[in-house]
């Protein structure tokens, strides 16, 4: 639909990028995110110890504090904390990104339908969205994770956690998309499309949804941070996958020994804080860049 003349002014994304480039904390956040993405992609191939391996036990290094050989120390069981933290980055980013991808798709679809159409269906959808705000989501996530991992889906590992997080996590984005759709559906450009004979779904997904991408991008970025934090809690409490390296699992194993082996608790925790901080800063920066209304 875009008029493709060879010479045109800066598009809205170019303008947003120019604004984002000036935002120091947003750039710092992006740098942290890029760092973690690189660690997650390259790290598992270069670290000294494979995931969940007790190799250091046989080297006589179990329970030793940080040293040159083991930068983050070793657990009592012989797990090298540095290798494990690096490999956890891979898995935790997978959880954050996969859950965000699924929730964004569900949230945009449900929100757009609930905002565009009138009647019983959209009322019910709004009710369901609001219901998810009120229910104690974390408790149900823990319960689902426990029951399903015991009985129903053996060996699904982290993907089970992703699916549960996604099931309970799509309502925020749906609520925003619904509000924005509601606001846009009577605007002139939508009426123009309608008067040209465009169908409801074409109007929704070709005209309205592209115009609400900027809040969706911002919330999705912040959601990645939120899902990573939730996964850390789930694993810390012992409801995650015990065979996959995650920061939460390391914290879970480190907590009973925190009196003596403080390094098992500190380093994975710092990794979580910086990773989540990176996504939050990036999200805030994107929010400033994409919503010029909030800028002075």
């Amino acid at each position, binding site marked *: 639909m875009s008029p493709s003349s060879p010479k045109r002014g800066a598009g809205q994304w170019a303008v947003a990028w120019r604004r984002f480039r000036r935002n120091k904390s947003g750039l710092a956040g992006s740098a942290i995110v890029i760092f973690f993405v690189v660690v997650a992609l390259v790290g598992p191939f270069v670290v000294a110890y494979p995931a969940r391996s007790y190799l250091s036990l046989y080297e006589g290094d179990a329970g030793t504090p940080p040293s040159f050989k083991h930068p983050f120390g070793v657990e009592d069981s012989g797990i090298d904390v540095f290798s494990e933290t690096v490999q956890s980055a891979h898995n935790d980013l997978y959880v954050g990104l996969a859950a965000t991808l699924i929730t964004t798709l569900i949230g945009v679809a449900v929100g757009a339908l609930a905002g565009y159409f009138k009647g019983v269906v959209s009322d019910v959808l709004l009710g369901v969205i609001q219901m998810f705000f009120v229910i104690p989501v974390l408790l149900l996530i823990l319960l689902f994770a426990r*029951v399903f991992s*015991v009985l129903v889906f053996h060996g699904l590992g982290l993907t089970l956690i992703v699916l549960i997080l996604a099931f309970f996590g799509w309502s925020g984005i749906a609520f925003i998309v619904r509000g924005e759709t509601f606001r846009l559906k009577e605007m002139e450009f939508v009426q123009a499309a309608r008067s040209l004979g465009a169908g409801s779904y074409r109007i929704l997904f070709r005209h309205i949804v592209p115009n609400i991408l900027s809040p969706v991008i911002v919330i999705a970025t912040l959601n990645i941070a939120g899902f990573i*934090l939730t996964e850390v809690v789930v694993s810390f409490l012992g409801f995650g996958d015990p065979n996959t390296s995650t920061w939460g699992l390391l914290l879970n194993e480190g907590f009973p020994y925190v009196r003596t082996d403080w390094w098992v608790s500190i380093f994975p925790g710092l990794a979580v804080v910086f990773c989540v901080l990176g996504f939050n800063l990036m999200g805030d920066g994107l929010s400033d860049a994409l919503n010029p209304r909030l800028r002075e």
Partner: protein
Amino acid sequence: MASLIRYIIRRLLFMIPVFLGVAILTFAVGNAAGNPINLIRAGLKNPNPAVLKALTDYYHLDQPVWKRFLYWLWDLIHGNLGVSLSGRPVISQIWPWTFTTLELQILSLILSIVIGIPVGVYSSKHQYSKADYAITGAAIFGYSMPTFWLGIMLIVIFSLDLGWLPSNGAVSVSYPWWGDNTLDWLAHLILPTAVLTYVSLATIVRLVRANMLEVMRQDYILAARASGLSERTVTYRYALRNAISPIVTIIGLGFGAAMAGAPALETTFSWPGLGYAFTQAALTLDIPLVEGITIVITVMVLIANLITDFVYAFIDPRVIVQ
């Protein structure tokens, strides 16, 4: 007045489907294994056949699932949450936990509101100053951090290293901390309250700041200043009143999130509350207890939301008319 009553009734009616939704979800999970007797088998190591028979009779496990749900819902509405795997009634187990959890939650909620609003206002009045950067920096750290991890760090510093404060439970078992029962209670409260306050403080400060910045740009603020009102009056009487209404909603939702976030924090401090109990019950697959705690927390969150709605209607009467 009539519209206020209609508003209240509308909010009350909304609670019914929400409550039903949570009831269905928790019940469905308990029955995800088909017959919940399978779950009980997974929870108890060596179940006694007589116990299984008794449970089957008690929970009507030989009936179809929809009938069981109705039985369960009927009991629920009458305040009967069933019997946990330990053989004790769920409801009598839950009461003491509820109070220890509420004690922690309400104290930190009050503290974070009392501290958060003035700090947020200060930060917005001194935008881009050094203090503002420090405050927003501290706030963004606050919500980028797993609550329980901050708890662990504080335990390492103040309990294990310095030995100033106790790190687990709500009271001492053997002899009271600081030699007095009231001081003992206080000493146990300090660390978990500090963690919880910091985390909810972060959200509140951030929101107050953002809303104040937006409101202070409005024309009526300019008009108020032009008519010669003091900066203090303009800030607190004119701007804050308008900046605060969205914050009330967030505090209400935040209370729900905090209640649900309790498991990790309470586990870290071995705090004998609902969250800690929920974690233990879920790990041991004590489904009746898990369902009971979920329902109690849901009811508390719904009540908190109702209070939020009333406060909101009081601050911003426009919502009643809609």
